[in-house]
């Protein structure tokens, strides 16, 4: 796989310099690995900070701006950010109302955000955390590190960000973030692996007629390797896994068909058509939808389906104005 890079070791910093050049409304420190919305800290507003390994763009740096995140801290590719970075982002966005950390449930992310929260507490910043673990592909949580944070992270960041923008306090913003996570499930399928720039070779091998069911977002293999299927079959496998865990019948849903990075938008819309038909057949309503690569794994081909069971309040917060590089509407 040929890559459009200069130096494998400089990919993250080079990309952040590009982000800064393209988005003057963001404050980007490419060397420290911190992206902050320009008007932060906003007095009295809860600050939202998220972060994780790079390679998932636009997550998280593309979601910094009014109505969503106040700051993001990208780590190396597929590697969690470090505590210093998270602490610096946290203090940079604290407007006196506290800071919410939105953390995807991966061991490295959890450990580093925990250490950062301790450091921030030393500087008298109140920090709460929401752990995102929406991935239904991981089964038995007592025998694993627990479910992973995947596509549902977009819902948590958007909806919690909207409530924070309205001036809600830290407890309320954290509560809505947890509510979204509890009402959200995701399942991903890979049609090809991806290549971490510093590693230079694919993270796993996949035959031409095979696919991986139940992937995470770091190029890790999934829970099962099966013969490749049609878009309709792939989508059905994802939705059946979700529906078995969280029944969808009778629900009004926010649905994301998320491209993993290497699957073109035309195929994502093929998938969305199949999702829509499957849900109609199973008595669920698509109330809001999003199609595109929002939580990617470098150039991995495949899709992830994420669904959130909406309430009127969550729908209102999803519809609220947002102005970030990757999501913008309502203004």
């Amino acid at each position, binding site marked *: 796989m040929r890559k459009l890079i200069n130096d494998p070791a400089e990919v993250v910093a080079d990309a952040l310099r590009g982000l800064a050049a393209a988005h003057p409304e963001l404050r980007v420190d490419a060397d420290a690995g911190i992206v902050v919305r320009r008007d932060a800290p906003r007095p009295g507003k809860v600050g939202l900070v998220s972060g994780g390994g790079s390679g998932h763009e636009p997550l998280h740096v593309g979601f910094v701006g009014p109505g969503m995140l106040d700051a993001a801290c990208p780590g190396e590719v597929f590697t969690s950010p470090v505590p210093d970075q998270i602490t610096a982002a946290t203090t940079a966005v604290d407007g006196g109302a506290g800071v919410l950390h939105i953390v995807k449930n991966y061991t490295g992310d959890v*450990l580093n955000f925990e250490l950062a929260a301790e450091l921030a507490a030393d500087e008298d910043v109140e920090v709460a955390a929401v752990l995102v673990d929406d991935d239904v592909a991981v089964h038995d949580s007592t025998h694993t590190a627990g479910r992973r944070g995947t596509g549902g992270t977009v819902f948590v960041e958007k909806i919690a960000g909207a409530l924070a923008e309205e001036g809600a306090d830290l407890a309320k913003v954290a509560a809505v973030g947890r509510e979204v996570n509890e009402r959200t499930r995701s399942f991903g399928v890979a049609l090809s692996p991806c290549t971490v720039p510093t*590693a230079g070779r694919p993270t796993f091998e996949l035959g031409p007629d095979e696919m991986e069911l139940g992937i995470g977002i770091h190029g890790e293999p999934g829970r099962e390797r099966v013969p490749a299927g049609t878009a309709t079959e792939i989508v059905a496998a994802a939705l059946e896994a979700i529906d078995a865990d969280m029944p969808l019948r009778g629900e009004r849903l926010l649905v994301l068909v998320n491209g993993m990075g290497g699957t073109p938008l035309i195929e994502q819309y093929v998938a969305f058509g199949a999702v829509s038909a499957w849900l109609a057949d199973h008595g669920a309503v698509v109330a809001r939808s999003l199609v595109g690569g929002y939580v990617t794994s470098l150039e991995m081909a495949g899709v992830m389906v994420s669904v959130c069971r909406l309430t009127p309040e969550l729908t209102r917060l999803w519809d609220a104005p947002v102005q970030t590089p990757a999501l913008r509407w309502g203004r």
Partner: protein
Amino acid sequence: MNAADLTAWIRRAAELVTADAERLTALDAAIGDGDHGHNLARGLTAAADALAELPADASPQQVLSTAGRVLVSKTGGASGALYGMALRRAGTALKVDEIDARWLGAALREALAGIRNLGKAEEGDKTMVDAFAKAVAAYDAARHRGTDLAGAARAAASAAEEGAQATVPMQARKGRASYLGPRSIGHLDPGAASTALIFRALADVTGGEG
């Protein structure tokens, strides 16, 4: 053993992990996300570089807490946090300038406690704890038999390697490999493999001839 030996240990660990970065990364690609070797090589090298800048009269505690702090801030991932906290905890246990076998044992036990406390992993979970706990137990057993520091460190290095190899048939219950369930069986855990290198580095700088 003194502060300079501890600095030599971190430098040697950086060399061994850098030399083996490809292998560690390949192990990680099999059951994780394929970045362990390069990340840890970067972190340990940064730690060794930071130690070179310390004043000549830095204490063992300063050496290990500095190495730990740099490892946490330069490595990333779970391994940076875990190894960094381990070194910081080990540093706080070292309250002397001249480290005998007993003091080193106390520091290693404290490092293991730090890893267990932060990572919540136990032996058998297919993590660095499987190598680390075996190494610490072997060190203590050797010391109780009257073996000197160098001999105990060699025993720890052998036990760490055995502990790492013992992860091959295990099914992972912690960390990213746990997502694979039974498919994690048959692979050497990369964290246990890097722990074995770190203990080999300790034996290298304390032992001389074996």
